[in-house]
């Protein structure tokens, strides 16, 4: 009954991940410290190391992209959280078991639906040529204005965030004992007060986790701003792609990637800290 050592079973995944993921990420970091030679694809491999690619990111024109990405992502995540919490509460507390099953099926289907399809659908419906054009114009909203495009990008993010956050929050709300809310009401608190001082604090960690998931998804979004932003609203991901596809400036793209990577890791670190705390407590 000798068992093969488990290290042997780690080999296939270990090799694939080392060669196609961890090594490339290391290479990316190294590339970000190389000087860019115009007209050359990729940096010269023994070029001296430099911080120039990072210094470039501190100029206002580059910072603008980071600020824009964070601003729209933050907006979409917060709005998504409010809507998702209301939806999740309604599904867990007001719906029949059958209705709940249908609602869950609906949101899971949405999660599985291609992001590209949803982005196209939003552009077709709410974009400059869509059926709502006349209505928008009659309200004085120009579908080609920058403000509207920003809202459209946020809407694209919301279409993904709301199903994700709602499904996350379903479990959170299910774990809150409804009798606590009833008790608060029996003791004379009006409903809104009972929610504010009982339901919401008990859901705090779940809400935070849902928010951080949404935010992490948003800041690394690629297709949504690419299609809905029409080149006028660019996220950091799009900037990385443009560095590669338009001027083949690999070192600069690598530096932007490294920064985006660092921001994402920080958010995920915060999330796991809070989610683990919730599971431990």
């Amino acid at each position: 009954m000798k068992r093969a050592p488990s290290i042997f079973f780690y080999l296939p995944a270990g090799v694939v991940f080392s060669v196609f993921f961890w090594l490339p990420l290391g290479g990316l970091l190294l590339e970000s410290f190389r000087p860019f030679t115009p007209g050359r694809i990729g940096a010269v491999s023994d070029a001296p190391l430099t911080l120039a690619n990072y210094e470039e990111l501190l100029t206002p024109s580059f910072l603008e992209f980071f600020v824009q990405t964070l601003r729209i992502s933050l907006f979409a995540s917060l709005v998504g959280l409010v809507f998702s919490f209301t939806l999740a509460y309604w599904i867990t507390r007001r719906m029949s078991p059958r209705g709940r099953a249908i609602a869950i099926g609906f949101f899971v289907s949405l999660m599985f639906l291609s992001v590209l399809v949803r982005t196209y659908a939003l552009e077709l419906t709410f974009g400059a040529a869509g059926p709502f054009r006349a209505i928008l114009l009659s309200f004085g909203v120009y579908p080609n204005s920058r403000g509207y495009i920003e809202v459209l990008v946020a809407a694209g993010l919301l279409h993904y965030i709301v199903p994700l956050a709602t499904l996350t929050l379903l479990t959170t709300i299910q774990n809150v004992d409804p009798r606590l809310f009833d008790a608060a009401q029996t003791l004379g608190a009006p409903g809104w007060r009972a929610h504010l001082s009982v339901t919401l604090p008990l859901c705090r960690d779940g809400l935070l986790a849902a928010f951080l998931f949404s935010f992490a998804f948003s800041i690394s979004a690629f297709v949504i701003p690419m299609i809905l932003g029409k080149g006028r609203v660019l996220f950091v991901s799009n900037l990385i792609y443009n560095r590669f596809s338009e001027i083949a400036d690999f070192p600069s793209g690598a530096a932007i990637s490294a920064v985006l990577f660092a921001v994402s890791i920080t958010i995920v670190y915060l999330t796991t800290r809070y989610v683990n705390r919730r599971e431990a407590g």
Partner: protein
Amino acid sequence: MGRKIDDLFSGLGRVMNGFIICFLIIPLVVTSLMAFDARPYLGPLPPPALSTRWFSKFFSDDYFLRGLGVSLELALISVCLSVCIGVITAVALDRSNSRARELMTSLFVSPLIVPPVVTGFAILIFLSKLGVVNGFARLLCGHLIITIPYTIRATLNGVLGIDKSLTEAALTLGARERHAFWDITFPLARTGILCGGIFAFVVSLDDVAISIMLTDAKTYTLPVALVSSMRANFDLTLAAVSVLLMGLTLALIFVLEKTVGLNQVIGQGTFR
């Protein structure tokens, strides 16, 4: 007074729920309607006459069909490889102690927390240094990195749920370890493996951010083809493709509901 505020809030909640559900559904309905539009241009709703012209246009467009072929081939190969690797790794994780399991799982799930564009760009730089220029090979590398995390996690969920005493009993009764795996572990972990396979298929078929970095002039996936034609001209062929993809999603959801149960699926969602 309190009651009135309560009524106000619950009314507001209802309005918000109705609004957001409309927001989620309306674009999909509009797209489905427009896909059957008989007009040769993008006109206002509703379409005056229906036809399947955009569907036939899609199926006679070489550019899209080529992308579809590459996408399907890539998705099938990625799913097969990542399911195999996922099962082997899940067995390894199952045998390790809980500390090692936690550490290794988070290492293997890490591609999900790295922005996909960054992963794609890193692989692009790395492979071009190695001199790998074959588009399909590059795409396969990228897709394996994003599908394996799902198959590992889903299979592990299936394997961890199996009572250890079953395997031990088989081994005590003289079964070889290999037989114990194929007769006990594998059948019991089947739903987990299937679930991981479906996740991997969906992820591979939907990816844009990684694929767009790794394509070459002749080897591109359907989503990459769709994105570039979306930027070039806004044609209703894309609406027809969207309807086809929605149909595919519904079919996959149906399979998942019948085999695994959707409640199981949620526990394995993107970020858990």
